[in-house]
């Protein structure tokens, strides 16, 4: 397999009024685990149900109810850890994080502070061909999601729905290895891609199934390298945490704003206060969440309702043996086996469904040709109608059939586009359609030669012009193709015209 090696991108530099500044960013991604039932109860995780219908007595914290862990959620966390090349902890444990909020009926969230299930791993975040940031993962822990509050249904009341309460989340914590807003968005995009390939989180940001907390600080150029050499945080600036963002655009805008806010404070001789902030997209600014500050005294302690979670190495090995091909490996394979460019390989591996589709089209065929057809014709056509690859009316076998006809020289590129349109709108077997509708290019030189002779003989003026200016010979090619009903192979015609005109 092709080995992809990268150089690190240059960090973003923001010019302050006095001097230059760099950004240091760490992220906590909350990814909802794809599962049927919740982490500690048998209630459904389905989105969009009637309020408080996917709720058991465990989820709404009725007295005496006990949590029982969903084994599949544990498996999903292990699979995610393996996908991020992380250490799997065979013994982990659950703790209670205590705070009061209307969407948390227990009065505490069951989480894993002291002994997370997944340890250190990494994500390779590409920023361009051959350029990538290696972002270290510190840990992944399993925890419960909270419910949802709706504030706009009544002027004096908040409405609370516990359907999401107790759904399993993976909190994926990175090291402060991200060096700019674009890198932050690229990191989330890459993580989301890996999770979707693994099938451990659907990555739906709109529904809040993937949310990001971003820790931002600024430092003078050179300070970060000292931190990396020593892992001593004192080289870095004081950070602020921006909570709960669910859009790539907001993540970038919030980081940009927050960095500039901190730089302004520092250049003014002030000090950044470590705090939790909220990004307001309407005003494009971050604001202090003072209400959260006191609640930060979470008084964690081991959950007495749950024994430590012990898993066996054999079980982890079994999950490892069933791992799907991940984005980096798939991209490398597409480039090595199908001769794709870095750009095309990125486009075709971005979504698993599209990658699988392309794989099926390209297998045993010309990879570059398959890539062109999938990206330019199919994706273009689907996009025009707002369709997803999963809704494609043309199957991989059908598109492969069209490409086979081109490769065999049976149809021209122009005919192939017409044929594609017919298959897209009407369906059917490409070879049969081409046969039934007479889509067959003439490669028989004798037949084309006759047409060329005929047109040359009938147009002596054009012959004279073309001999004076060979660029005009294209006129003959056009006429011959027209005369053969578009079936003559353009390359063959060109060559014959040039020969006959003595060009």
């Amino acid at each position, binding site marked *: 397999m092709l080995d992809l090696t990268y150089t690190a991108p240059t960090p973003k530099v923001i010019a302050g009024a006095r001097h230059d500044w760099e950004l240091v960013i760490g992220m906590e991604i909350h990814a909802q685990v794809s599962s049927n039932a919740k982490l500690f109860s048998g*209630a459904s995780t389905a989105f969009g149900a009637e309020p408080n219908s996917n709720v058991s007595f465990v989820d709404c914290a009725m007295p005496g109810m006990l949590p029982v*862990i969903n084994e599949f959620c544990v498996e999903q966390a292990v699979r995610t850890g393996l996908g991020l090349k992380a250490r799997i902890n065979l013994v982990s444990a659950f703790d209670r994080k*205590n705070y009061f909020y209307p969407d948390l009926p227990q009065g505490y969230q069951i989480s894993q502070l002291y002994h997370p299930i997944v340890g250190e791993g990494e994500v390779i975040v590409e920023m361009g061909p051959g350029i990538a940031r290696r972002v270290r993962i510190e840990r992944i822990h399993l925890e419960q999601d909270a419910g949802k509050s709706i504030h706009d249904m009544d002027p004096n009341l908040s409405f609370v729905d516990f359907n999401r309460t107790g759904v399993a989340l993976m909190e994926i914590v990175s090291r402060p290895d991200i060096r700019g807003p674009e890198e932050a968005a690229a990191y989330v995009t890459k993580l989301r891609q890996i999770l979707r390939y693994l099938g451990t989180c659907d990555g739906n940001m709109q529904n809040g199934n993937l949310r990001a907390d971003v820790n931002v600080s600024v430092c003078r150029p050179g300070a970060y390298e000292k931190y990396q050499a020593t892992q001593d945080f004192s080289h870095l600036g004081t950070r602020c945490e921006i909570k709960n963002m669910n859009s790539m655009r907001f993540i970038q805008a919030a980081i940009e704003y927050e960095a500039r806010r901190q730089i302004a404070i520092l250049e003014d001789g002030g000090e950044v206060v470590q705090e939790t902030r909220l990004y307001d997209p309407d005003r494009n600014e971050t604001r202090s969440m003072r209400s959260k500050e006191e609640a930060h005294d979470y008084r964690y302690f081991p959950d007495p309702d749950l*024994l430590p979670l012990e898993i066996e190495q054999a079980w982890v090995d079994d999950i490892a043996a069933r791992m799907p091909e991940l984005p980096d490996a798939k991209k490398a394979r597409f480039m090595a086996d199908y001769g794709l460019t870095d750009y095309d390989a990125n486009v075709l591996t971005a979504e698993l469904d599209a990658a699988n589709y392309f794989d099926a089209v390209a297998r045993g065929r010309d990879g570059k040709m398959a890539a062109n057809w999938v990206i330019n014709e199919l994706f273009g056509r689907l996009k025009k109608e707002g369709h997803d690859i999963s809704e494609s009316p043309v199957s991989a076998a059908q598109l492969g059939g069209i490409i086979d006809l081109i490769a065999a020289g049976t149809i021209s590129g122009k005919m192939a586009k017409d044929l594609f349109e017919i298959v897209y709108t009407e369906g059917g077997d490409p070879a049969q359609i081409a046969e039934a509708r007479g889509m067959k290019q003439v490669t028989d030189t004798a037949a084309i030669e006759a047409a060329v002779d005929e047109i040359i003989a009938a147009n002596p003026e054009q012959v004279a012009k073309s001999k004076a200016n060979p660029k005009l010979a294209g006129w003959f090619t056009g006429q011959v193709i027209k005369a053969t009903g578009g079936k003559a192979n353009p390359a063959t015609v060109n060559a014959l015209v040039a020969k006959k005109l003595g060009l």
Partner: protein
Amino acid sequence: MAIDIDTARKVARLARIRVEDADLPKLAEQLSGILGFMEQLNEVDVTGVEPMVSVTPMRLKRRADVVTDGNIQAQVLKNAPDAREGFFAVPKVVE
């Protein structure tokens, strides 16, 4: 370690338990007593001893990923002081 009155007040507030000022000194004293007992336990040398988390040799019980519960909205909302349109209705929480 002794718990002073301010710490007792803070712990009460974090736990959302209403404690009148007059009751705080007694509460602080009782909490300090509990911590004092903990300190006494801490004097035992447990170097190299695995923490015992359970008195029964049990493995954490697991469930299969199957929906077996839910769809009891009426019962879930039954004890709510105020419920409307299927939601718990609570005093406005503004962030």
